[in-house]
């Protein structure tokens, strides 16, 4: 399994689905483990009754059926599918509505879903907040910049409560891949996946949604900025150390070095004349 996880970390992120399918063929005995540990882009489904899209994951799945967060029904229908309690379902409904507004403001489109379930801890529960956005030209990209562009975010929060204070443990995964081709001679593509965790304690007197929401918003911003500045920045660094820009004059650039050599050579020559 360690070898499998190491392999996934090296494969092109944009091909993770193929990589996982291949691993499942080679390691059929580890399929449960692989399916739960390897992050995959989210699949979407259509809820006919509510007229809305929803996202599929292990937490709204029972057997081969998936539960829609809008209608709260399984598709294909199930007699006794796993359901959140009535009280939790109320919170789930509210979370889906509010998260949809959040999603619209940050993602200008996309699909989101929130699923909740009770955990062993007394009164404790867990929730997963999912977002999927297709930002390509033929998807929901408003500026027409991307040939291909996908963002998937999976946030899993575990909540435990004690006397008006709640402890939240968030694990977030972001997967993205995009390609631009604004210049016909060049294609530029970046893809990546990162996972981070965050824990916090907040008073639960006003309910949990605001606390969870703020944590997720904070985390998404950190991940977006991290990917943008640190991770993508590092790939740029790698490229520019392999091939140096020739027009730039710096002490270490090729042009700078050759200029320095020329100047020094000149000085030495002049000195030796005297």
């Amino acid at each position, binding site marked *: 399994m360690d*070898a*499998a996880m*190491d*392999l996934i*970390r*090296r*494969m*092109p992120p*944009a091909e993770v689905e*193929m990589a996982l399918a*291949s691993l499942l*063929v*080679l*390691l059929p005995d580890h399929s449960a483990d692989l399916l739960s540990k390897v992050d995959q882009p989210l699949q979407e489904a259509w809820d006919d009754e509510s007229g809305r899209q929803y996202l599929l994951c292990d937490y709204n799945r029972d057997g081969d059926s998936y539960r829609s967060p809008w209608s709260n029904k399984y598709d294909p229908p199930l007699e006794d599918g796993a359901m959140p309690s009535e009280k939790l379902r109320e919170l789930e409904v*509210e979370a889906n*509505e*509010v998260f949809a*507004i959040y999603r619209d*403001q*940050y*993602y*200008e489109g996309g699909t989101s879903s929130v699923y909740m379930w009770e955990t062993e801890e007394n009164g404790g529960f867990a929730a997963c907040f999912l977002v999927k*956005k297709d*930002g*390509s030209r033929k998807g929901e990209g408003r*500026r027409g*910049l991307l040939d291909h562009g996908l963002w998937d975010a999976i946030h899993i929060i575990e909540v435990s409560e004690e006397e008006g204070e709640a402890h939240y443990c968030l694990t977030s995964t972001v997967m*993205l891949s995009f390609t*631009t081709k604004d*210049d016909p*001679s060049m294609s*530029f*593509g*970046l*893809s*990546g996946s*990162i996972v981070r965790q965050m824990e916090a304690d907040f008073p639960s007197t*006003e*309910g949990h949604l*605001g606390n969870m*929401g*703020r944590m997720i*918003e904070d985390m*998404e911003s950190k991940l*977006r900025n991290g*990917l943008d500045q640190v*991770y*993508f920045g*590092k*790939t*740029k660094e*790698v*490229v520019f*150390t*392999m*091939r*140096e*820009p*020739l027009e730039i004059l710096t002490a270490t650039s090729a042009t700078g070095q*050759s200029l320095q050599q020329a100047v020094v050579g000149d000085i030495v020559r002049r000195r030796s004349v005297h």
Partner: protein
Amino acid sequence: MDGATDDHKAGIAKWFLLRSPPGQIQQVAKDVQKILMSDKLYQQAASEAFPIYNMEQMICLELPDGSGQVLVSNCGALDSTHYLDLRTAQVATICTKIRPATDEELPSGFVEEYRSAIDSELLKYVEEAFPRGSCAVFCTAGSTAEEDDAPFELTALISASKISHQNFSSGSWRSTWKIQVNQELQSVDLTGKVHVNAHYFEEGNVQLDTNYEGSDSTVLQNPLDVATAVVNIIRSKESEYLLSLEESYSKLSDNTFKELRRKLPVTRTLFAWNNALQLSLSREVTRELSK
């Protein structure tokens, strides 16, 4: 479910090996070996994958007698284990030995004048622009051409890589420039492709995949002048590409990324979770009332 066939498994292993990021094939190979749990299958996949990978990555090998380097590529491959180095007119057998190239393996004297002139100019460019790059020029068509005779094609390859496992990063740059010399039309046409990859994997996995295509032409002259013209074209086109890359990176944060997720909502403030809760509550009430 019946187990997958041996061939299918070896095929999958080969798929993984060929997608190794620059400089990481050893690590990928170790993982694949463990997962396959069969040395026979691993050898089958590796023996097919390694030569292809080496050629695609344009791996550069040091010649054992220190006479230079040989670039592994499909332009210079005589077969899957023998590679031609025209600069020293030798053939290297991977992992084994060196021998001089035979006359049939070498281009004609006429073609060789152009090939070696371009090779020397290219070496200067590569030394200047690529801190750790290597290059080679091969004759990929019409190797028997003589003066005022048939057209011929040379291919210039540049390969550079940066591998730093401690810094969790690696990258590769591969240029392939086809140079078509047409003696009848007295023209030299160039078409080039550059493929750049980079991988950063400290607590994450992010990869860059970019391609460039360019072309230009110049007049057929004597070998030295053609070499200067050709390498100048290569130098300027590749510099143009680097500039475009710089631009793409600078547009990332405020433009490209926005297509996926904005930094902040249009309001330029964080999301008002409390307001939204009230909003959703009133929406629910309205919905209930309108039923």
